[in-house]
């Protein structure tokens, strides 16, 4: 077999596309052509109902077959027409006229249809062979001459081979392929999409971590360690506000560094809660200084400056943009399939099941038996759905109203559950803040601190199971029930993080409760006046003591740190303490106790597992601003989850029983990720834009007075640029830019929508045409039969 060249294959596919579009275009052209050739009322009948197209295939290279078709047929059809005088001329004329709309008559359409399949295929093959021969000729020519083009081509080839080598190296480094082979071989491709998604998230986290490394960690470390090479220039400032800020920062640092005695238990507490010595590390926002580091070089005259605050803000912004671009890029390829899926009339359910059913990757015997059972189940389920649909249509009104009432009640129950969960989270967060005094014992303090995270984890584990059970009562079709449960579970998971943040925000951002007596003298009461948010705590004798939160960003960061750790611990613990024992019990006792056999092993339920991973990623993104080390932690965590879940799948759990469609799953994962990402971005943007930074910590200390917000660091930087660039940037802020840009984008969206609608319409029209052409073919076959019979009858006369 001659190996076809790859580019020629591309030509082949392109030419087939061209053929079909040409067919569309030439319908109208052809009708006018043929109209000229019509001579009599007895018209050419399509003889291509004979399935073999010897007439055409014996002709030489005839790509544009329209004229040829007409001439051949006119000759062969006149032969028939001469034999049959008694053809009803009227009816034939009516049948063969062009429609009023200028579309070709069905005779022309028949002629187009004839040999559509076999002939065009052969024409494509011939053309491909010609192109191959042409290419060989050019290659020979090129190799003989030593032209300039030849050198360029060789150079390009060299670059291409270098790229290939790089990609090779990347695939070698990608040691995951061995893991994937194992998973796919045992469980098929649908399950492995979950692991592909996890791997993609690991890559994403690594990229963000790399950005952070370059622009945040290294400059900050350089301040501490390389002061020989760098001189540090503080953001200059003066005045009472600046002095206050310096005072507050010093006291905060002192408070952190002079910690209690070095007891193991206390160190563990500090690590668990993120307080104490851990708070003064790179993990939290508060560690980073608002310095401008400049290169101290005797030889260069220019100072290279690095504004830490600007770098911090821009890095966070750029990493969000990078994540967004990557998600959208990944999901754009799969959105097409999702859209196709929803168009139920056009979705080929059975064909997809038959031709896309077998997973060619499977190479274990156990799994192939299993897969056949899954396919069988899927067919059975589809057939059952057809029956149910019929039954559903035959429901009486009374049954329908009962069912709707049931559904309404269940939706209310679901809503109540959700609201209840949110309120619980709010209550626990409130409780946490109210109990910030250190009068509790250490252990209780730890428990109180972890309470919101633990509550969230418990709710996330239990409530989706309740949703599953409820959806069974609602009597939806299988796929719809799955979808609605997933939507509800997603809502619960995302909103729990959101509720936590909002309740923190509400508690920490008291307006109008600034400390009253904070004079601008030397004796600045750092306990009460540093910081611009308060919390209240009631200590002895019901006296309301107001203390300021020194560093609210670090505090919020601690909550996210705790969420991250809780997530990690809960997933590990669930596998260790629930799933492994269940497997062991099942293995030993399944034959004896019927209940255990019925419960079976733990199920590896794909959507819920994905929600786990997306939740981890959401926590990471939300906390990325307050916890600069969180991307690194999440990178390690997701990497660990990959292997943990793989272990769970291969050894502990059962494979999913329902046949998950691979493509549909992947687009679902991406959609959930995108939705959570957008919500997080909006929330974070609001917080950064609205809240004042802390006075005692962080890179934005200077902006903590009343008039500033964090975003001002960018504005100040722009203000320091020379006039012309500044004017350009200022222009982008004015309405003169926004209004036209908005209008133009609206117009382009409308244009694309209109074009898409037009294509859809055209597609429908073409489908109709194809169908009617097929019917015409049948009809005319019957007519030809009739005519031949009449002719024979006449001859017998």
């Amino acid at each position: 077999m001659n190996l076809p060249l790859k580019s020629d294959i591309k030509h082949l596919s392109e030419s087939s596309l061209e053929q079909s579009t040409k067919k569309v275009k030439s319908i109208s052209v052809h009708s006018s052509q043929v109209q000229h050739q019509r001579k009599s009322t007895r018209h050419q009948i399509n003889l291509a109902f004979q399935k073999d197209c010897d007439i055409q295939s014996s002709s030489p290279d005839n790509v544009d077959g329209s004229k040829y078709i007409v001439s051949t047929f006119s000759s062969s059809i006149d032969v028939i027409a001469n034999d049959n005088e008694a053809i009803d001329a009227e009816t034939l004329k009516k049948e063969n006229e062009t429609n009023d709309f200028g579309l070709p008559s069905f005779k022309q359409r028949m002629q187009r249809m004839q040999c559509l399949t076999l002939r065009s295929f052969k024409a494509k093959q011939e053309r491909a062979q010609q192109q191959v021969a042409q290419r060989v000729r050019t290659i020979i020519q090129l190799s003989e001459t030593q032209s300039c083009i030849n050198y360029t081509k060789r150079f390009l080839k060299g670059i291409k081979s270098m790229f290939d080598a790089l990609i090779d190296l990347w695939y070698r480094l990608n040691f995951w392929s061995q893991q994937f082979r194992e998973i796919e071989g045992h469980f098929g491709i649908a399950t492995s999409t979950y692991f592909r998604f996890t791997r993609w998230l690991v890559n994403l986290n690594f990229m963000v971590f790399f950005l952070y490394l370059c622009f945040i960690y290294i400059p900050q470390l350089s301040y501490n360690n390389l002061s020989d090479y760098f001189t540090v220039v503080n953001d200059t400032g003066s005045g009472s506000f600046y002095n206050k800020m310096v005072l507050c920062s010093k006291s905060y640092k002192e408070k952190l560094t002079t910690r209690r005695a070095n007891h193991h238990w206390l160190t563990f507490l500090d690590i668990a809660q993120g307080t104490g010595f851990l708070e003064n590390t790179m993990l939290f926002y508060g560690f980073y200084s608002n310095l401008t580091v400049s290169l101290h070089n005797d030889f260069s005259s220019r100072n290279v400056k690095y504004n830490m605050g600007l770098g911090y803000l821009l890095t966070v912004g750029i990493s969000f943009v990078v994540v967004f671009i990557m998600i959208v890029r990944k999901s754009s390829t799969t959105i097409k399939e999702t859209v196709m899926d929803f168009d139920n009339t056009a979705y080929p359910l059975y064909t997809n099941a038959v031709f896309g059913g077998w997973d060619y990757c499977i190479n274990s015997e156990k799994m192939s038996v299993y897969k056949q059972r899954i396919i069988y189940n899927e067919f059975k389920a589809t057939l059952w759905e057809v029956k149910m649909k019929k039954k559903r249509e035959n429901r009486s009104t009374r049954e329908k109203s009962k069912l709707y009432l049931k559904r309404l009640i269940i939706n209310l129950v679901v809503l109540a559950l959700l609201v209840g969960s949110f309120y619980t989270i709010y209550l626990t967060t409130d409780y946490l803040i109210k109990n910030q005094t250190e009068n509790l014992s250490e252990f209780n303090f730890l428990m109180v601190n972890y309470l919101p995270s633990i509550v969230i984890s418990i709710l996330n584990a239990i409530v989706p199971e309740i949703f599953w059970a409820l959806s069974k009562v609602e009597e939806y079709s299988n796929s719809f029930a799955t979808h609605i449960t997933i939507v509800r579970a997603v809502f619960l998971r995302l909103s729990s993080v959101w509720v936590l943040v909002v309740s923190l925000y509400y508690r920490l951002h008291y307006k109008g409760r600034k400390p009253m007596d904070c004079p601008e003298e030397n004796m600045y009461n750092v306990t009460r006046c540093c910081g611009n948010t308060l919390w209240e705590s009631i200590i002895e004798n019901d006296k309301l003591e107001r203390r300021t939160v020194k560093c609210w960003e670090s505090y919020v960061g601690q909550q996210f740190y705790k969420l991250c750790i809780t997530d990690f611990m809960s997933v590990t613990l669930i596998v260790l303490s629930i799933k492994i024992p269940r497997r062991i019990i099942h293995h030993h006792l399944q034959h004896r106790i019927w209940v255990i056999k019925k419960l079976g092993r733990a199920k590896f339920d794909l959507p819920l597992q994905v929600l786990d991973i997306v939740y981890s990623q959401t926590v990471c993104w939300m906390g990325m601003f307050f916890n600069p080390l969180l991307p690194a932690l999440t990178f390690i965590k997701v990497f660990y989850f990959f292997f943990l879940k793989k272990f769970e799948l291969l050894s502990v759990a059962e494979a999913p029983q329902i046949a998950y469609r691979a493509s549909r799953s992947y687009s679902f994962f991406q959609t959930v990720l995108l939705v959570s990402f957008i919500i997080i971005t909006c929330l974070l943007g609001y917080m950064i834009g609205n809240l004042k930074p802390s006075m005692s910590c962080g890179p934005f200390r200077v902006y903590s007075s009343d008039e500033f917000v964090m975003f001002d660091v960018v504005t100040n930087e722009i203000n320091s640029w020379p006039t012309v660039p500044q004017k350009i940037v200022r222009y982008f802020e004015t309405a003169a830019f926004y209004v036209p840009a908005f209008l133009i984008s609206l117009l382009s969206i409308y244009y694309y929508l209109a074009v898409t609608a037009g294509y859809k319409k055209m597609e429908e029209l073409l489908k109709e045409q194809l169908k009617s052409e097929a019917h015409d073919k049948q009809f005319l076959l019957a007519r030809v039969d009739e005519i031949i019979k009449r002719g024979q009858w006449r001859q017998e006369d």
Partner: protein
Amino acid sequence: MGNKESSFSEAQLEAYQDCTFFTRTDILRVFDRFRGLAPDQVPYNMSYNESSMVKIPLDVLENMPELKENPFRRRICQVFSDDGTGDMAFDDFLDMFSVFSEAAPREIKSAYAFKIYDFDGDNFLGRSDLETTLKALTQNSLKTEEVKFVLDQVLEETDLDSDGMLSYIEFEHVISRAPDFLTTFHIRI
């Protein structure tokens, strides 16, 4: 990669890279697998002639781990082999895995899928071909009327000219709208 003594000349590797969707290391790895199936028959250095002449018989290929569980393995080998008997030379072997790799585009895969599912070789997927496919998928566990129902549905979804058979154009048209085909028609080697 290193300076390993290669089983192919540079020109051969270039040609293979051009004609298939594999990279260099992939081609060498596939050759290792090919050689592993019949080490005494396949030489270490393959010349141009040998790569299309030295064939591995069908029954050895059918026991390959990648193909062992596939219900269509026999038909796959027949389609990709040069003479239609199922004995494959290295060229055919490489071609087969290249088509099944992730990088192969939809058009190539659908063209070969059509040939594979066309059991009687008449360039049409008739009712008997579809029935054989369905039975191979479900190991004969569906009842007769269920099989008939599914086949009727398939023909209704795909057969545009109502002739009771699927031509290549109709097959390609419906496959382009079936999202799972591209992901399942894939063998990792």
